[in-house]
């Protein structure tokens, strides 16, 4: 039978030295070994060891947080691929956009996927926030995770904004002109912030480079750290906030 065959192969693998060096523990057959397996894995340990079935139902969360995270992964993958074709410099930036269309295999798909995913992610993150808000997810003991979530919202928006300049077309240029002019209306600090963001007083090559670094390095790193904290705090704060009536039904 197939099951025994796969079972046998797995058992055989578990006995190899390489497997043991990686996982250390034997098969997760008891609750204890199962939780140890989760704790002992850097990728899984941020997740709860135990999930209540009711919180897995579609109407409990609509999977909005997971969906946003999935989009973040898509954006990271397509973004890295796009970085292979892109120079953050003035004559090249726009030409690289066109080259994606003219010569790069599936370049249009790559770019559109990145753009579309970014737009959907903004929508998903907002929906996620409203959903959590109306469920009272900001109430104790979730206050801190709510604050982290707000931080993630801002990072998402800022990622979206910095990415807008990179095609270096008229739309990008004027959008950033408007955006940075708005910043300059902040009392006292407005102009210094704008100067810092643009690397000068006009939107030029410096601004493009700064936006590129923000978009590709600083903001994604911030997002990864905040996402990790966000996930970690879900289990530390005692799981998801699920509506009472769902709990009763469950």
């Amino acid at each position, binding site marked *: 039978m197939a099951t025994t065959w796969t079972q046998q192969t797995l058992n055989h693998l578990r006995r190899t030295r390489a497997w043991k060096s990686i996982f250390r523990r034997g098969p997760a057959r008891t609750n204890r070994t199962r939780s140890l397996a989760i704790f002992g894995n850097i990728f899984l340990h941020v997740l709860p060891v135990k999930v209540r079935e009711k919180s897995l139902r579609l109407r409990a969360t609509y999977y909005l947080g997971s969906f946003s995270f999935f989009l973040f992964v898509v954006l990271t993958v397509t973004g890295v691929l796009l970085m292979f074709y892109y120079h953050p410099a003035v004559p090249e930036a726009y*030409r690289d956009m*066109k080259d994606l269309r*003219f010569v790069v295999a*599936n370049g249009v798909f790559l770019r559109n996927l990145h753009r579309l995913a970014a737009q959907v992610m903004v929508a998903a993150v907002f929906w996620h926030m409203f959903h959590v808000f109306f469920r009272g997810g900001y109430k104790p003991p979730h206050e801190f995770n709510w604050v982290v979530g707000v931080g993630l919202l801002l990072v998402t928006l800022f990622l979206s904004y910095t990415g807008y300049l990179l095609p270096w077309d008229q739309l990008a240029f004027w959008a950033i002109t408007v955006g940075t002019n708005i910043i300059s209306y902040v009392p006292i600090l407005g102009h210094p912030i704008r100067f810092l963001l643009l690397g000068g007083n006009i939107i030029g090559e410096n601004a493009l480079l700064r936006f590129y670094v923000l978009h590709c390095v600083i903001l994604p790193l911030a997002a990864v750290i905040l996402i990790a904290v966000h996930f970690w705090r879900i289990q530390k704060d005692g799981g998801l906030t699920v509506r009472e009536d769902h709990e009763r039904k469950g």
Partner: protein
Amino acid sequence: MGKIPKRLRRAFAISSVLFLGVLAVSPVKDLLQEWKQSRRDYVRFAETRPDTKQLLADFHPGIDQIWIPEMNVTDRCTTCHQGIHQASLLDVSVPQPFRAHTPMPHQVEKWGCVVCHRGQGLATEVREAHETTLAWEQPLLPVRYIQASCGVCHRGTLPETPQLDVGRELLVKLNCAGCHRLEGITRPAMLGPDLTSVGSKASRAWFYKWLKEPRTITDSNGNTTVDGVENEEEPRMPQFRLNEKELRALSAYLSSLRTGPAETAKLDPRVVAALERKPDTVDQGEVRFRQMFCTTCHSVAVTRAGETKLIGGEIGPELTKVGSKVNPDWLLAWLRNPQASMPHSQMPRYGWSDEDLYKVTRYILSKLTDPDLMSDVPRLEGPAQEEIQLGQRLFLEKGCASCHFVKGVSPQADFGPNLSNLGSKTLSQLEFSKAKIPRTLIAYIQAKITDPVSVNPAARMPQYQLAPRHLEALTTALLSMTGGPSSSGLAKLVVPAPKPGFHPAGAFGEVYERYKCYVCHRFNGYGGTLAPDLSYEGSRAQRSWLVAFLKNPQTLRPTLTLRMPQFNMTDAEAATLADYLAMVTQSPAVNLGSVTSKDLTPEAARLGKQLYEVKYQCRSCHTIGSSGGYVGPNLTNVGNWMNAAWIEEWLRDPQGLVPGTIEPRRTLPEQEVTALAAYLMTLRQGGAAKPAAPGAGSAR
């Protein structure tokens, strides 16, 4: 694991398949890209050609591009234009985009395509590469205007760019530089005529008429067309769209421009008295007018068989109705000394006798007239002071001062926009208003020249009536103004225009300047092209012949309608010119001492005569006496005219002496060269050189 409901599993399976299907769209679209299809088409096309093997050997799948980093050129045009180098695909029957490029001075591999043709070299889609799209504003330059691209780098004239050269000449001739800044076109010393004392030249009514419609001749249908489009000679004055009030004001202002009393060039009263009553004075004037070849520079309308045509040159203004325009006193003073009233005038200062001057002015004032010229001009009173003031303001506002000098009136600097980068303007930089023209740069330029109001209701620019050929040439020249090719890395490739000049001083310089030789003749690359190049005249012509010719120019080519005017030079002036030409204008290829009379024996001349008449059939083009062709110059008097050494060198290598001459180069044996020269040197009219035609020099 077994707890997952069947429904959910099925939904998961279906959505996975759908997702994969959506993902597959992109690679399929990738396969069907235009350039990939084009390359598949090329392979199929190559298989139908006889030289399939050769064509496919040069073919590789994938994108073809020409990359020239130092010029910032990345052209992928050859991805589709695959056969661009294939000599076997040159024929017009080869479908595009596979046809080869016609032979040209620049190689595709070295220059790419968009440097000359414009368009988007990086694009691999047909529309993006050739047209104006949302993301590209520099479409392909139509082949009709392709010479504009030559002009971006080549600032001088080229044999390959006749249209561009005509356009640049028009930019100068039409005084575009008066209002606009133009790359490579410098402001001439004089643009339009100096108007400082124009009030003493013509009447207010004439100014009114001229300002309203500068084209002065009316055809049988009442259309003012002849001095304009039909013979491709445009008046240099464009039409300003002036209303009645402006016309009155400007004509009032112009008629008020007088500098003291008009110079009265008095004729000898005895001459006037003797000729006044003679019935044939006007006819004699006409004869002198023709004999002096005024029409070499000035054109006059002639009506033959109901068709009106302008006959004559383009250097000076057209004179058909000048008698109704100019004031008699002014005309007299002008003909005596044009530079006195207009220092930059190109008109030579003729040596007149009072008789001739009287006859010619009488002819001009009584025959070159049109009694109906002012018929549509309203009655104009003496100019009122406020009209003059308004006129003076309009003179500046309308930009008249940009072309016309008036003492005490300083023109506004940069009156019109700078056009040095007009040729590289993008559509978003152009204002089309509601004009019903295609939204292209070329259509814009042409509308702006012929009907500026259509694209800009507030335009100050006047409108020009140009023949289609000239409009295209002018457009070409303007398209070549791309603001310098520095942006595309071509700056170091610019070939500047040579800046020749020939301004001799001294006795020769004085005569040369008086008769304005350079207006028609060229000296070492400087001067007009109407008449023969005189850079090597001293090698060609004998001094005695030069003197005789200058005193009485007879045409050497009877089929020409434009001939050298008779200037009525003094003996001393003719001698000065002839001495200078004989001494200075020598060709390094001709050694005048190399042929002596000893070489030119009668035996040789006999052989030469035979060669001339039989072997080489020279008379099919040249005339001797009364028989022969009219293609080359008349050789009846060549023995008095040319130097033997010049003739010999000419027979050896005519194009070496005069580049582009149609005289065939035959590589004659040296013996035949000497024989022909010996024969030609025997061809003399009346023995030695002397003024031939009666009446020559009779002006004194």
